[in-house]
């Protein structure tokens, strides 16, 4: 074993690369062999090369802070996270199943609400949902798909079981970093990729383009697709520009678009107005159309909802799709799979306590210090409590919050989520990781090979969000049979 493993100690948690002790899992054999051939100096050089590449390629994300918005270089860990192909194919099936069920649910919610009528879910959950948009009732997007792009977060517990932690159905981000991470790995470990067979990921932009074409309202041969961004100050602006570029689509801001008297959407070009068929919007529902939602929004396009409802433009994801992106609704996904698809869920949910239920609330309040408590509607890891890591004061504050607004909170047991070797200074140490694959559904369904692995760079931390000190890794789906 090379010196870089000196500090590698894994306890009861599941490690993605190693068995207990320092024995690689079968899938990690080649990677370990390679890492062992590197000296501390070698690995330091690779790290520097990666940092330089990130800086020069300008891979960045924006952090909001009191001192203004800072454009930060993307934090990247050079050691890839690996998954076996066989396991991956099972996960992939589970993800497709899940998104199909979720889309059936959203269609149902804006139609007859049979799921509720059949007693599978209390109607208050929808009635009190911030993300349920009455304006969308009766709409029928093409293929009956509302959430065309989904980023689900997966975590693995100490027994090695993969759970779905949440489904991001609004404007999930991260896919560009997944793609760029692979570009960097190819630059810094070219010799390693010679000997290991991993699934390619770079057809995502083409798949995205196909999916977006498949939802165009008129079947023109080449629909005009645009990516609608809130602009340069958005934390994911890099990604918006990246995807537009990869698809050869126009990157537009709200002010570039208008809805004309014919209720069609046009963009302002140097040649005059040009019709837009599909909008991949990276703006939240609330800001989409000041005529209908937030009246002060300057990011959106007045009249966009009229155009969408008239069927003149397709929006991905459809407005209102967020109704299923709610941590309370999440608890019902396994039931949705059984109800709509008549199948057993292939991927388990993390057990979830709904604070809206008095009995469950009582349990949560009692056991706050052991649980993870999350607001139903936030993203980015904000406003949550990790019980075992919190101070008594924080726990007390959360108790009040939860009791005041139980509908808005859920709780889950604190999972001991898996670790993966991560370069800390010049040694490898285990750090907690999750995985965000991206699933597309239009006419067909597609799942990225792997996804974005996020890693909590701080020792012991479970929070992987880039806005809160998380980093990312390249994710390799390794084909063992291919060797």
């Amino acid at each position, binding site marked *: 074993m090379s010196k870089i493993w000196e500090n590698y100690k894994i306890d009861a948690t599941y490690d993605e690369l190693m068995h207990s002790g320092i024995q690689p899992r079968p899938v990690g054999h080649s990677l370990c062999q390679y890492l062992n051939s590197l000296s501390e100096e070698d690995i330091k050089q690779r790290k520097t090369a990666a940092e330089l590449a990130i800086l020069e390629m*300008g891979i960045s994300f924006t952090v909001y802070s009191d001192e203004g918005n800072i454009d930060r270089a993307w934090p990247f860990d050079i050691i890839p996270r690996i998954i076996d192909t066989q396991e991956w194919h099972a996960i992939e099936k589970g993800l497709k199943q899940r998104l199909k069920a979720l889309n059936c649910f959203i269609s149902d919610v804006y139609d007859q609400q049979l799921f509720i009528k059949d007693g599978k879910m209390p109607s208050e959950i929808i009635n009190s949902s911030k993300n349920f948009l009455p304006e969308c009732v009766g709409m029928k997007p093409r293929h009956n798909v509302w959430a065309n792009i989904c980023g689900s977060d997966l975590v693995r517990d100490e027994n090695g079981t993969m759970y779905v932690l949440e489904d991001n159905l609004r404007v999930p981000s991260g896919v560009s970093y997944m793609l760029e991470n692979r570009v960097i790995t190819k630059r810094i470990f070219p010799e390693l990729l010679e000997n290991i067979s991993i699934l390619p990921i770079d057809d995502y932009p083409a798949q995205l383009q196909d999916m977006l074409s498949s939802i165009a309202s008129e079947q023109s041969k080449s629909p005009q697709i645009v990516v609608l961004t809130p602009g340069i100050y958005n934390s994911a602006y890099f990604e918006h*520009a990246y995807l537009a570029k990869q698809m050869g689509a126009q990157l537009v801001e709200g002010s570039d678009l208008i809805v004309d008297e014919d209720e069609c959407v046009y963009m302002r070009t140097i*040649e005059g107005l040009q019709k837009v068929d599909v909008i991949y919007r990276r703006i939240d529902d609330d800001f989409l159309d000041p005529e209908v939602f937030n009246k002060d929004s300057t990011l959106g396009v007045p009249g966009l909802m009229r155009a969408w409802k008239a069927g003149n433009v397709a929006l991905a994801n459809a407005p209102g799709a967020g109704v299923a992106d709610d941590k309370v609704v999440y608890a019902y996904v396994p039931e949705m799979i059984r109800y709509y698809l008549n199948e057993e869920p292939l991927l388990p949910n993390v057990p979830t306590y709904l604070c809206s239920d008095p009995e469950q609330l009582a349990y949560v309040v009692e056991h706050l210090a052991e649980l993870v408590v999350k607001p139903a509607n936030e993203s980015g890891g904000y406003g949550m409590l990790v019980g075992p890591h919190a101070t008594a004061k924080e726990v007390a504050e959360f108790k009040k919050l939860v009791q005041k607004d139980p509908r808005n909170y859920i709780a889950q047991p604190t999972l001991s989520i898996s670790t993966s070797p991560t370069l800390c200074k010049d040694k490898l140490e285990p750090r907690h990781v999750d995985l965000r694959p991206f699933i597309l559904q239009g006419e067909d369904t597609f799942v990225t090979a792997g996804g974005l692995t996020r890693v909590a760079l701080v020792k012991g931390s479970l929070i992987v969000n880039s806005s809160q000190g998380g980093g990312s890794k390249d994710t390799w789906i390794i084909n063992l049979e291919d060797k």
Partner: protein
Amino acid sequence: MLSRSAERIYWLARYLERTENAARLISVHMNLLMDLPKGVDMGWQQLIRINSSEDLFFKHYKVANERNVANFLLVDEKNPISLYSSLIYARENMRTTRELLPDEAWEQVNEMYLFVKSNLDSVNNRRGRVIFLKEIMEGCQHFTGLLSGYMSHNHAYRFIRLGRNIERADMSSRILELAMLLLGDSRSSEDRQYESILWRNILQTLNALLMYRQQVRSRVKGDDVLNFLLRDTALPRAIACCISDIAGTIEKLPNNDGLPEKVAELHKYVQNIDTDKTTQRQLRKILDDLQSRLGSLHNDISENWFLVSEIAPSQSQEQTVEAG
């Protein structure tokens, strides 16, 4: 092409040209000083004056000496037309139009930005400054070459050419103005004998010395240089050449209503400047006039193709005011 993208890409080109010009100007001014005997005052202050930024400069600095002026024009973020500011704006405009340009072009601008950012102090001494300026001038040329070789010569490319040439013509006129100022200041006969050194340096600033020699085939004389830099249509940094390039570009853009005629008029105006019969004072007035005509051409371009300001306050704020 989106109107907003056209606007940003046009400004990207202007700011990069401005970056290169700032580097060129300081570089040649340093050379000029090294050629002149001590005591001949070809002041640094004039560099501030031709950029119309005296007020701003004296708000932050007491003396217009070499160190302060170089600092102000190269790396001072408080100066909206400093090299560093121009590069920051160029990068910002590019960050919002990355989907239209080759990756290598973005990486080139980004690398220059990172270079300047980490070498701000190096401009305080002449040696460091020489290396700094060389890096920037080469970087800008690299960018131009990249686009010329890697990018379709489409509408986006045309807006780059428009921005570059308007900025370039503007800067060339300011450099001629600098020559007038320096000549006007050097009243004594002793100073007069350095006139040809001055003109040679002006030619060098615009990379025109070799071409001048080939074209004019006489020793460097003030009137000839002026004529060459104003009216030659083949030298890239001559004003007439910039204007012909603008004319050719506008011709190929859609919805160019009325613009070709305006550019033709501007071209005629430049060709009719009679350098033999004008005094230095008159010439300075003509150059001023030329700058405001270029400004009004910019306004026409903006009204014609870019987003009208009713809905795009953030974009217009992003750009600094027309220099001058």
